[in-house]
């Protein structure tokens, strides 16, 4: 299994109110699967995504990524899991504005200790792969939304993770650049990456082989 969750509960506190974002979620995502997670806002999609990417810890229950049980790992070990196993794509692109496209893509490799020359070479290859070989030295502010999201995808691939987690990747894009991003992600899935997409867009969501519907912090149904 790429990702497996068992009885996952996530509560957090905002001020005095305790919010129960996930109330007992169990889910198995096999390697190479193409999964969409859909549901109304507040249904716990993003919380689920954060847990699957080792960005957060569950209040209770078990999260395994590529067979590694996350409970009991230190912050540092969690960082290592994120670094090696997961690539994130966000709705807001989340590029670092002071860095060029090339440097943004190379960033995750800095933390995994790849030498500068190898880092830069691979970052360039990845940018060419997403069709941005000509925009290598541009800053995010000099690129369109679609281009920025493709840089983000290249960055997600930097450390060759097993899993790509995309949180509303087309949410801030027009239809045509959105489609381009979808095609790119699906291509990666076709090459063997496990792809998990959180989306509001039912048309996009329906394309996944495994469709998870969520409501009120619980999995409503899983379609295959």
């Amino acid at each position, binding site marked *: 299994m790429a990702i497996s969750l068992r009885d996952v509960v996530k509560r957090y506190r905002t001020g005095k109110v305790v919010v129960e974002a996930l109330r007992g979620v169990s889910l198995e995502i096999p390697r190479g699967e193409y999964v969409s997670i859909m549901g109304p806002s507040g249904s716990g999609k993003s919380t689920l995504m954060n847990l699957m990417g080792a960005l*957060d810890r569950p209040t209770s229950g078990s999260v395994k990524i590529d067979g590694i049980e996350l409970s009991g790992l230190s*912050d*540092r070990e969690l960082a290592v899991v*994120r670094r090696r196993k997961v690539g*994130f794509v966000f709705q807001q692109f989340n590029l670092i504005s002071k*860095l060029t496209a090339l440097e943004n893509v190379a960033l995750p490799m800095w933390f995994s200790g790849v030498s500068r020359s190898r880092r830069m070479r691979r970052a360039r290859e990845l940018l060419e792969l997403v069709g941005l070989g000509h925009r290598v030295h541009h800053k995010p502010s000099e690129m369109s939304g679609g281009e920025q999201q493709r840089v983000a995808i290249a*960055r997600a691939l930097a450390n060759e993770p097993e899993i790509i987690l995309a949180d509303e990747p087309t949410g801030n894009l027009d239809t045509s650049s959105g489609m381009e991003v979808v095609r790119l992600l699906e291509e990666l899935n076709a090459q063997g990456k496990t792809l998990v997409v959180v989306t509001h867009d039912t048309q996009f969501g329906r394309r996944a082989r495994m469709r998870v519907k969520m409501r009120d912090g619980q999995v409503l149904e899983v379609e295959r």
Partner: protein
Amino acid sequence: MIEYLRYSLRTIAHHKMRSFLTLLGVIIGIMAIVSMVSVGSGMEQALRKKLEDLGSDKIVVSPRIAYGTSSILLVDADAEALENLQGVAFVSPIYTVTSDVEYGGETQLLKVLGVDPEKAEETFGRGASSYSLLAGRWLGRGDRYKVVLGYSAAKDAFPREVSVGSRVRLHGREFEVVGVFSKTGDRDKDYSVYTSIDVLREIFGAGERLTFIIIRVEKGSDIEQVRQRVEERLKRRKGTDKGYFVMTQQEIIQSVGSAYTVVKVVFGGLAGVSLIVGAIGIANTMIMNVTERRREIGILLASGADRMHVMRIFLTDAALLGIAGGAAGLALGYGVSRAINLAAERYLGEGVLTTSVTPELAAFSLVFALLVGVVSGLYPAYRASRLEPVEALRA
């Protein structure tokens, strides 16, 4: 390490104005330290040089000029009593006054040193960078109404240059100029007039009074032992060891050095206060920085950074800011120091005050600025590293 520097340079370049404002406190602080301490060490060096000119084999006996202790009177007999001490080669009593000196219808107040004419050359003409003659001759045995002029006293003090063979009026009496000294660069010396001690005391009714005594130690004698003998002899004669001091040149330099250490510490302390304010400024901006860069921190964490990476990134920023502020402050401080030099030269005369930015001072200010940066960045960097990834990304 180099990667962190690269990343920090990007951050600083991205926020040029903010970085500059953050640094202003450190820049001003370091500038103040560098310029103030450079004045202190300049004064010290000037005085040291002056004292070194005395010669390293010399002992000076001088009444103590201090509040609360009455200084004793030195007279000829005191000087004579020192002559036969073991290890003493030579004793030269000196009497000094500030007197009106007239030449070509113009009157100036100049420092006049009275010395035994026979001993003049031996007293002032030997030792490192002491006097040499530009024209004429030294005072000699039997010279009475003769003077030798310092370089500036001859060239600059009067509208017309005074040359050898001219006559000047000193406190109403006519003196013949028999010699002019070369420039020493020491304003005090260059504006002085040298004449016979006996004549000078006669004119000013000073009787047998002395201003100080210069003693030269015999070659091969231990200067400290001779100093003690001089002290003992004087104590016996005067019945006290208060009210005067007997110092070797080395001791004088040491005591002057420690006096200027105080000056430097006080100056440096004042400047240090402004640096602390600067440090608080850095810390404040860095904390705001952390809040403002939460999203960036989230991205770094999502890209696989751990807490140590984040901590190091923010610490490098602070260190780099500190050292940049230090470098800018050092450059400005050096500029201020040069400006003080030029102003001093213009308005006080050459060699009175020469500020100096020593390599030690430069190194110290850079290291200190770096330290200020790191210390003030410590807490903000810690805060940055404690952010939870999800929380940071939500910003």
